């Protein structure tokens, strides 16, 4: 049963897509029904952060073991994480249009953080494409990836806690308990988080297999 996480991801995501729209949610001011976005928007960001963490770990392994496979994996994880940032942005933007009245605002530290993280990973991809030698590319991009990951976390974990965020559960601390979730919502939210993380692992697995087959064909 090595494919258990793929099956679980399909079941969890289907379950959250259906039950996420049907289950009762608490009526909160401004949020109302849009609180359901927490089932889609937040887990997608978690999946992205998860993939970026995988990318960080693979980069550290690539540095310590001097192994090209780890470098390929780090790159693939960053690509998958980057891919997840797009639906994360879209769901957030649509939600913001109906609750804050705007697609994008510079007042919120989390939005700035996301924009900067996307720039950081674009820079990482450009850095990779600008070096031809494989071993050199592995080392240089791994160094940048580790450094950039730390700076990104300062941005999206530390700074929003110090300033007011417009996000629900605001006042600075983007913690779980402040999402005003009741048990009904937790029944959907936790499977959604797991489902999207498993789904990102699945994509990551496929990307890795494609890369390794391409490498074999080139050799």
């Amino acid at each position, binding site marked *: 049963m090595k494919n258990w996480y793929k099956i679980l991801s399909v079941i969890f995501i289907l379950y959250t897509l259906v039950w996420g729209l049907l289950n009762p949610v608490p009526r909160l001011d401004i949020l109302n029904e849009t609180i359901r976005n927490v089932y889609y928007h937040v887990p997608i960001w978690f999946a992205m952060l998860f993939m970026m963490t995988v990318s960080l770990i693979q980069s550290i392994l690539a*540095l310590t073991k001097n192994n090209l496979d780890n470098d390929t994996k780090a790159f693939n994880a960053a690509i998958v994480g980057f891919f997840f940032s797009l639906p994360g942005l879209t769901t957030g933007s649509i939600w913001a249009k109906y609750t804050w009245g705007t697609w994008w605002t510079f007042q919120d530290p989390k939005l*700035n953080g996301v924009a*900067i993280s996307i*720039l*950081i990973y674009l*820079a990482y991809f*450009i*850095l990779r494409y*600008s*070096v031809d030698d494989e071993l*050199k590319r592995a*080392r*240089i991009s*791994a*160094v*940048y990836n*580790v*450094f*950039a990951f*730390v*700076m990104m976390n*300062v*941005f999206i974990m*530390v*700074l929003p806690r*110090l300033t007011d965020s417009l996000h629900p559960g605001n006042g600075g601390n983007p913690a779980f308990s402040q999402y005003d979730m009741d048990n009904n919502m937790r029944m959907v939210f936790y499977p959604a988080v797991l489902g999207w993380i498993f789904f990102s692992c699945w994509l990551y697995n496929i990307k890795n297999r494609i890369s390794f087959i391409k490498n074999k064909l080139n050799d």
Partner: protein
Amino acid sequence: MILSLIKKEILLEFRQKSTIGGVLVYVIGTIFVSALCFKGRLDKPTWNALFWVITLYTSVTISGKSFLKETGGQALYNYLHYSPTQFIISKTIYNMVFMLALSFITFFFYAFFIKNEVENLGLFFVVLTLASTGLAAILSLMSAIASKANGNFAIMSILSFPVLMPLILVVIRISKQAVDGIEWAGVGFNFIGILVALNVLTIALSFLLFPYLWRD
């Protein structure tokens, strides 16, 4: 060893009078152009933002070249004679001192040509010091990476701007307080703490990561 490396950097910089003079003319020229463009009509937030944008661009331009000399034969010589940690620490310290001097010079000319809006000068100088050391530390590592990636200038700015943003945003926030003349009791010391932490974090990461950039 670190001291002799720093001494070498300073000697190299001052022996070539064109570089140190070029830096000064670059800074003064930028400030003068901004002064002419704005014609003194700046409110406080704009004054603050313009100052930090000028400092940001100056630091990327100046620190960006700190590793450009260290390629080819020079890199091989360094590799044989110095340890990587000593090398990056000396580079970082040298860049910090240089940026510190440069940012105070920038502030002097900025206040001279445009005007001095800062009401809490003590706080502003604390921010200026921490900001220039932080910028220098981050840019030293970025310059080392860029010099390995065929060292063109575009790569340097692409790599640095996103990772500099946390620092710049925190700096602008406290600097705004200094410009507005907030008393010391009301100052956001947690932000100053973050600035110090960013400095320490960057130096620690440079110390850990630079040895991997060392071999070619």
